[in-house]
């Protein structure tokens, strides 16, 4: 069954990949950045950490709507059919202080080597509240998964 099979592949993709391409917008043009992400178990939130002085952080302060691309490309010609890509669409915001401990734990479980970065006073832990994942397999097969709230 495509639905269940692709959902399982989506979960595996999110669990195995460490980096995602974050797309933000400054009101004039889009901007892409590579971020180290972690997902909550229900896939409802994608977390990443950024310095508050980056272009992406400035962008999402003004425009919270973002997209993240997570994929498993290998770089050869078979990628067209074999690689999988999931675009998460949602709203980004800095994690509120009362929820920071829990989010920090989720993030560091995935990226323990980034502990100093997470705790640096100049960095922000950002969460993207994902509304939908648009999952592309076999180059042209697309399923949409909505996160139940």
């Amino acid at each position, binding site marked *: *069954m495509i*639905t*269940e099979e692709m*959902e399982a592949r989506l979960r595996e993709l999110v669990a195995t990949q460490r980096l995602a391409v974050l797309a933000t917008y400054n009101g004039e043009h889009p901007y892409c950045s590579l971020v180290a992400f972690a997902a909550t178990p229900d896939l409802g939130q994608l977390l990443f950490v950024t310095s508050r002085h980056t272009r992406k952080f400035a962008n999402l302060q003004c425009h919270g709507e973002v997209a993240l691309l997570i994929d498993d490309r290998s770089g050869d010609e078979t990628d067209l*059919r*074999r690689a999988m890509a999931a675009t998460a669409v949602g709203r980004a915001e800095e994690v509120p202080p009362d929820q920071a401990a829990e989010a920090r734990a989720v993030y560091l479980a995935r990226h323990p080597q980034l502990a100093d970065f997470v705790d640096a006073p100049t960095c922000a832990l950002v969460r993207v509240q994902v509304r939908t994942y648009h999952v592309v397999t076999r180059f042209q097969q697309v399923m949409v*998964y909505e996160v139940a709230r």
Partner: protein
Amino acid sequence: MKLLVDLRGIGETDRAQVGGKAFALSRLVRAGLLVPPGMVVTAEAYRQHLTGTGLGGRIHLELERKRFKDLRWEEMWDAALRIRNMFLNTPLPPHLRQALADGIGERWAEVPVVVRSSALDEDASGSSFAGLHESYVNVRGVEAILDHVRLVWASLWSDAALLYRQELGLDVGRSAMAVLIQQLVSGERSGVVFSVHPTDGTRAMVEAVHGLNQGLVDGTVEPDRWVLDRASGRLVGHHAPQRLAAVRPSGNGVGLEALPAELAATPPLDEREVVSVYELARRCEDLFGCPQDVEWTYAAERLFVLQSRPVTTHAAEDGQRSWYLSLRRSYDNLQKLRQRIEGELIPAMVAAAEGMAAVSLADLSDPQLADELQARLETLARWKGIYWDELIPFAHGARLFGQVYNDTVRPDDPFEFISLLSSGGLASLKRNQAMAALVSQLREDRSLAAVRDGTSDELPDQFAADLDDLAKQVGIPDGVSQPGPARSALLRLLREAAREGAMSVPAPTIATPALEEGFLAHFAGAERARASDLLDLARASYRLRDDDNIYLGRIEAEVNRALEEGRRRLTARTGLSPELLEAQQVVAALRDPAYRPEPVESTAKTQTGLISRARQLIGQPAGPGLASGHCRVVHRPADLFDFRAGEILVCDALDPTMTFVVPLCAAIVERRGGMLIHGAIIAREYGLPCVTGVPQATELIHTGDWVTVDGYLGIVILASEGADHGHPDESDT
């Protein structure tokens, strides 16, 4: 790495470059046996061709379109044909072409040759996969040889090879094919010898035919067969068939020729020669260290070895694969099949349906109805068996033609040949014409004004009779001679079709004489007549492939009529919902009033954490065009009568009994895949976009969904009506 190697120059470590067949022959050459001179186009040449032209990436895109386990045999054939056309239409990179043309031209510019596959892993395992790849006999000239090298390369991805992809370890990135080019030895007598009889380890077997051994290998010429005692080499038996024909070089290939009386009366080998052939096999066995299956030929009284490979037990066949392989039939076989289908099977199917239609079911007692239903179920099962064993194989006629057409014309579109097959005579089109006539009558006839407005279902006699005829052709076996829900449903559909511009008419036949002449112009004399006969066979194959379903559908409709009668009686008795009763439960319950059937359970869907919906689905581009509209998902025949003009028909498997709604469609989407299936055929007839082979189409798409069908790319896009692809929540590709 060398691109060309002489058979005499192949070393012990070269197997991975020259393939199993050429490697074995090189060992025979070194051992001093008589082998026709030859050279090998190495696997390196294949790899250079794939990387130099980008063909590897294209093959990968074709084969990974969907999961292999989701591919039907027809889709495998379609994929293999597309790949074959890629090889046919992709020239060799200049440096490779130059190197091969120089090497081949030095030795084979003027000599007829055989171009044979030598797959890298062939015959190395314990299993035999003979016949999966192509070989060509009597090829002349450098250009023709290079063409056939590409065809042999393409056969690495033949439909049969795809069927055995796991055993063969087929992988676009790793698999390659070597090609053996050998001088054609035009043997007068040829055959096969097994140094150990395949079913008796104490014996050996020699098979021989007059002429070349292609006739024996492909089964068109029955051989003389001798059995020998392995220990003593003595002859212990001879089976002589009726010798009718021989395969001999002819034109640019081979042809089947009738045997003159003198040869027909003479076994191809005398006893001394049979023993010589057996001794040859024993020498091969000694050389390779295991029992051998050897192809040989006698030319000018000299005994040549054409091939030697281990005697293997064939890989255990599952029924489906052996059935599929049995579909590959010769022209002669298909001609016989055509006579049987047209002369016997179709008339018998019509008679069976008519016989059942004449029975008044309401007059039968319950036990009599049970017997009638049981008999009908058995009749249907028998016809379904015939359908699979004889009618589907006849569809291969269209495929056989397609391959010849593509080899000859080299069109960009590998399915261009289908345009030539459409002759407008499909039974489903005739039925649709009858329906169109009723629709225009309904639209224009003043006496039908109340019917047209929907205020009355009362009909004038002639219109009622014509409507009744139509009803029986669209899955209403009881007809609509009286007012009732069935008549209302059919009239509702006709009213819908009568709306201005609602119905499309079949596209003008694309099979212009120019296209046909363009094909036939490649042939002259007797070959032209043969090509014309093949086209005629293909047209019959195409037409009957559609029509046979209409006739089978009539039998099915009669079974359903009895089933519905049974269900109706039982529903009244048990209170169970009629669709919950299986046919055999109905039979049992009609026979035994005490029997209480258990309703059939439907399986519950599993819950997942996320809410899913399909956004874009992949299938095959089976009918070019682009259309958007609301979907009508057809789960059961009754859904067809709700069809609205301009909707997109989505179904599991469209058969001709359902295609009366096609004139109302904007496009067709089908779960079942293939380019020569009914949905694709009828879509082409009406010029509609069509995508077939969309897995789970009827589950992922829902009635009312707005979709765009891209018949060029073979994709179906689901989006809200008028949705712009730029909307942030909807853009994803």
